[in-house]
């Protein structure tokens, strides 16, 4: 079977600096891959470049559903079903999350809805992950706490129903309660069989989500790969153990 996302010798650089130095990886339909690694190992760069961030130059091959991903602009990648939940979501003051998401929804599914129709969808999706209405009338990430921003990303993910969700440290900067909520929300969304790449330092956000593959990124390369037990071991023993 053809992989949903297939990377072959992918190299990513920012300016002169080469950050990812040749990664090959296949992510199958419905699979969950976890990427772990020390700070600066290139995890965020990998996801951001796959989403099309123009500040990176990318060499090698990346195919999404068999089509060349690298030729596409960020919005074209998103419309085909690629989603990046940002580690540090960007503020866009004055634009409400609801009106923004309605446009994004129309772009993704080609379905222009009235604000009222879309409100029903948004309402249902919000309730499912424990958010209230007041949440989406606010400006995009404007004046939100770290936890709220992460939940905003998860809400967007749940509304846009991508084929492949890339979650960049959905657990960073969260207190225990927020961590619980974010983890539970991702678990719920995952239930429909969405493929995921999750970047994290901790196995516990993955509670309730079964990781098919775990990869350890080190100095721009995949240093080790394994099944879900690898994440557990890294949390217990640290990266040093995995990199040996």
């Amino acid at each position, binding site marked *: 079977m053809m992989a949903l996302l297939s990377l072959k010798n992918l190299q990513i650089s920012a300016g002169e600096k080469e950050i990812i130095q040749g990664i090959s990886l296949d992510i199958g339909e419905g699979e969950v891959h976890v990427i772990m690694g020390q700070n600066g190992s290139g995890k965020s760069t990998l996801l951001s470049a796959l989403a099309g961030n123009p500040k990176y130059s990318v060499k090698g091959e990346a195919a999404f559903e068999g089509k060349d991903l690298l030729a596409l602009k960020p*919005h074209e990648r998103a419309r085909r079903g690629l989603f990046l939940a*940002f580690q540090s979501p*960007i503020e866009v003051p*004055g634009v409400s999350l609801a009106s923004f998401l309605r446009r994004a929804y129309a*772009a993704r599914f080609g379905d222009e809805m009235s604000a009222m129709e879309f409100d029903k969808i948004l309402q249902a999706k919000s309730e499912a992950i424990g958010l209230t209405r007041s949440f989406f009338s606010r400006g*995009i990430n404007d004046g939100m706490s770290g936890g709220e921003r992460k939940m905003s990303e998860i809400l967007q993910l749940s509304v846009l129903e991508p084929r492949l969700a890339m979650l960049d440290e959905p657990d960073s900067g969260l207190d225990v309660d927020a961590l619980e909520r974010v983890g539970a929300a991702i678990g719920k969304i995952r239930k429909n069989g969405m493929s995921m790449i999750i970047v994290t330092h901790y196995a516990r956000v993955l509670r309730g989500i079964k990781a098919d593959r775990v990869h350890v990124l080190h100095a721009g390369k995949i240093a080790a790969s394994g099944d879900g037990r690898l994440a557990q071991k890294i949390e217990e023993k640290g990266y040093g153990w995995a990199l040996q």
Partner: protein
Amino acid sequence: MKKTGNVSELYGRDAKLSAEPGEGRLNVGYRTDVKGLTEELVREISEVKGEPDWMLKKRLDSFAIFKSKPMPTWGPDLSRLDLDALTAFVRPKGKDANATKWEEVPKDIRKTFDVLGIPEAERKFLSGASAQYDSEVLYKSLRKNISELGVIFTDMDSAVKEYPELVKRYFMTRCVPAKDNKFSALHGAFWSGGSFVYVPAGVKVPQPLQIYFMMNYPGFGQMEHTLIVAEQGASVQYIEGCSAPHYTKDSLHSAVVEIFAGKGSRVRYTSIQNWSKNVYNLNTKRAIVSEDAIMEWVGGTLGSGVTMLYPCSMLVGKGARAEHLTISLAGGGQVKDTGAKVLHMAPNTSSRVVSKSICRGGGLVRYRGLLHVGKGCTGVKANVRCDSMIADKISIAETVPVIDVRSDDAVIQHEAAVGRISDDQLFYLMSRGIDENEAVSLIVRGFIEPIVKELPLEYAVEMNRLVEMEMEGAVG
């Protein structure tokens, strides 16, 4: 074409079609043969309008002041503005009486409204508004309930005849005297049309009064006069939109707006300006704000080539308050020299200025503000915030704030921020499937949202649409 002409000939005679080649969409007739700014023309205008002597005298006095004042040199370059080439007074053909029903508005003019895409809501509101077509108010039909409240809402020319005592008292006297500046003097001599609003004590006008000004003649000087008087405890909202199709000749819009906000009254003046890009838009707008009154200026300047506009609030009574909310957008070849003047001339007065400017394609936006707190004015609070957004590397945003405080305990805040449309924001929005143009327009919309949200819904929609059009292809 004749070089000289008598304005009175314009009455009841067929006029030549003067729409520029390529402007065939608009089929309206004018006389084009009255040019130059002379004392003779001042007299003719007054005569044609059948004005009383006191108004003619005001015009002539203003003209003398206009002649004696040099062109201002402290602001944008006005050297290309040839005042002698302007036509100061035209009257659309085939019109005599003021229309009262939409159906009675000449078809050509209705069509022009269509062509210009004046929002549906505005037409709806026309039952309670006047629409100005060049110098003359063509359409006017006061809503019954407003007249019953004693509210006067009429065109300025009619007001001179029907309410001479009120006009004598307020017209270019204390608020904007002719001697204020070169263009207020010019205006005093050649003004034509505009609105007169009078709200008696205690009356709260239930809906906004709206008017649309259109300049539909090349090389024209449009100088409408708006005078709003709100007596004690009254409240009124007045909204005007301005636009002009594009002509090849430079035109001038030199309006004067005078507002008297009586004790405890509340006046909101909103204007959306979208003149074509060869219009010099040089206005004087000022309000005298009495004790405990609230004056609000809400405005967007999108069009015109050069705009100089600094609405002024004179807070003369204790506890008076002013709010100035403005959006300025400058594209290629446009200069927006805009801002606000607030004069705190009494104790416990307060003010807030929020200015949002956007420039792109080589445009220049300059915030020019004056904040003055007079001697002995205790308990004054003032807050100025001006934000600029620069879309590319060839556009310029400048801020020229003047703060002059002569009282010890005034609390003054001034914040200014200049930013670009950030790559991070663009990427974030695009990563959700939104293309680059739409992402830019969303970011810009968000930037101006604090002001747009103060507009009535239809105007907010229109404002966003206009800004979106202007920002098309702004980045990348």
